[in-house]
């Protein structure tokens, strides 16, 4: 049963993420990104990470993607403006990706094919009861330092964004 769901969610994620770059209309691209984010949340649910699934939908689908749509609609991009011939860069990016997937599929280093304990038995049973609690405890004990560093970096980024936006605004008004 869970394999069927995994197949569905995984397949939809693959298809919709290709559609994001392949579709001509930027609004349709944003919408297929929305569908993709939903199916990634579905994958989280299969892995019994309901908290992550909800946060995924709230943060990415509910806030960030709405802003994308906002910008796309305000700019009203012409369909042709979006396409530049970037196939050289694409090729450079593709080569390592192809090598990686070949290595993974052939069961080389980093593959989880033989060692699927982390998904099957592992700490799964304990976490499934209340994974919100588990995530909170792990974040504030084991990963406390990285957590604080991350929040500090985000705070700095936020202040930076406000300073940059504000300066632009006051300059344009002086003109």
């Amino acid at each position: 049963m869970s394999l069927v769901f995994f197949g569905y969610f995984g397949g939809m994620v693959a298809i919709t993420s290709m559609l994001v770059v392949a579709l001509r209309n930027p609004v349709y691209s944003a919408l297929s990104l929305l569908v993709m984010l939903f199916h990634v949340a579905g994958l989280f649910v299969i892995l019994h990470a309901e908290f992550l699934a909800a946060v995924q939908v709230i943060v990415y689908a509910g806030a960030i993607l709405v802003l994308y749509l906002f910008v796309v609609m305000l700019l009203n991009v012409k369909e042709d403006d979006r396409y530049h011939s970037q196939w050289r860069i694409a090729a450079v990016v593709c080569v390592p990706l192809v090598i990686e997937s070949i290595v993974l599929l052939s069961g080389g280093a980093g593959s989880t094919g033989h060692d699927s304990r982390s998904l099957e038995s592992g700490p799964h049973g304990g976490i499934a009861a209340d994974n919100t609690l588990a995530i909170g405890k792990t974040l504030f004990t084991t990963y406390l330092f990285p957590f604080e560093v991350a929040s500090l970096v985000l705070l700095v980024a936020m202040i930076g964004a406000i300073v940059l936006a504000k300066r632009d605004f006051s300059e344009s008004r002086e003109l």
Partner: protein
Amino acid sequence: MTEFGLRLAISLTQIAAVMGIVVITVLILTLAERKVLGWMQDRMGPMEVGPYGILQPFADAIKLFFKEDIIPAGANKFLFTMAPILCLIPTFIGFAVIPWGPNWTFEIGGISVKPFIISDINIGILYILAFASLAAYGIILGGWASNSKYSLLGGLRSAAQIISYELNVGLSIVGVLLLAGSLSLVKITDAQAGGFWNWFLFALPAPQIFAFVVYVISTVAETNRVPFDLPEAESELVAGFFTEYSGLRFAFFFLAEYANMMLVSCVAAALFLGGWNAPYPGTILALVGLPSFAWVENTMWFAVKTYSFLFLFFWLRATLPRLRYDQLMRFGWKVMLPIALGNIVVTSIAVFIYQQMK
């Protein structure tokens, strides 16, 4: 497979019952809004259809159903059709985790059934927030797909407004979550049992009065109601994002707005006002020797709380003028957000001290 079939049948029955309740409530609300507004403005409200106009909602529904369904020539047909549905579905999905009555379970053919909630998931409130945040897509896409400047402006305004105020809704809830120690609406409601002094609105160690005020104001803004109805401000934008909509598609937007109002009222009742718990310990029906009918009293209390909250929406609409757009944004970010954040800090400190003392 029979067990699966039975479970499916029970779930579908529950879903049908909840859908029925929601749609009937929306019908009542459309009439109640016009009647309440009428009384507040010293007039009668609708009086023609049926005695005292009580059949008006059905007349409205039939009218909308038979109206011509117009799609503007320049519109994006696919998204224009999708938008009202995208608006409606997330709202209806949210009702799946609302506890309508006591947390009972009974067995049918070896499966335990909770009669008053469709699905008791342990992230209930996050689930509602997640789907509530998706309702914005219906509005933005409806505005954009109409290919009209008024619709587009209404949709964009609505996007900015919903994102800004959704944040405040989420933050105002955090205090309640700290007090209850759970994200499940069933557990949150259970934690408020035994009298109104245990409701999180008044409960020690940290009464959530400020959080409740922030929640009320932010939900009014999130449901696009007066005084925050800028996305559909008729003096500036004709009718905002649904200017170009008519007939059944317009009815969908209308239904979504009222269902959304009902959803936020149910959440407010469950989080701050004790859900289905009566304002006194226990129930009267249990005291007079009918404990098996106590659920009637409990569900009635839930209905009373929800409808009082809905009345507040109408009251605000009859009382307050519309804000200006920059005032709305400044109010959301510079007044509501600091209050909500301050409430979280105070509540966490109070809960910590309370736990140390125990």
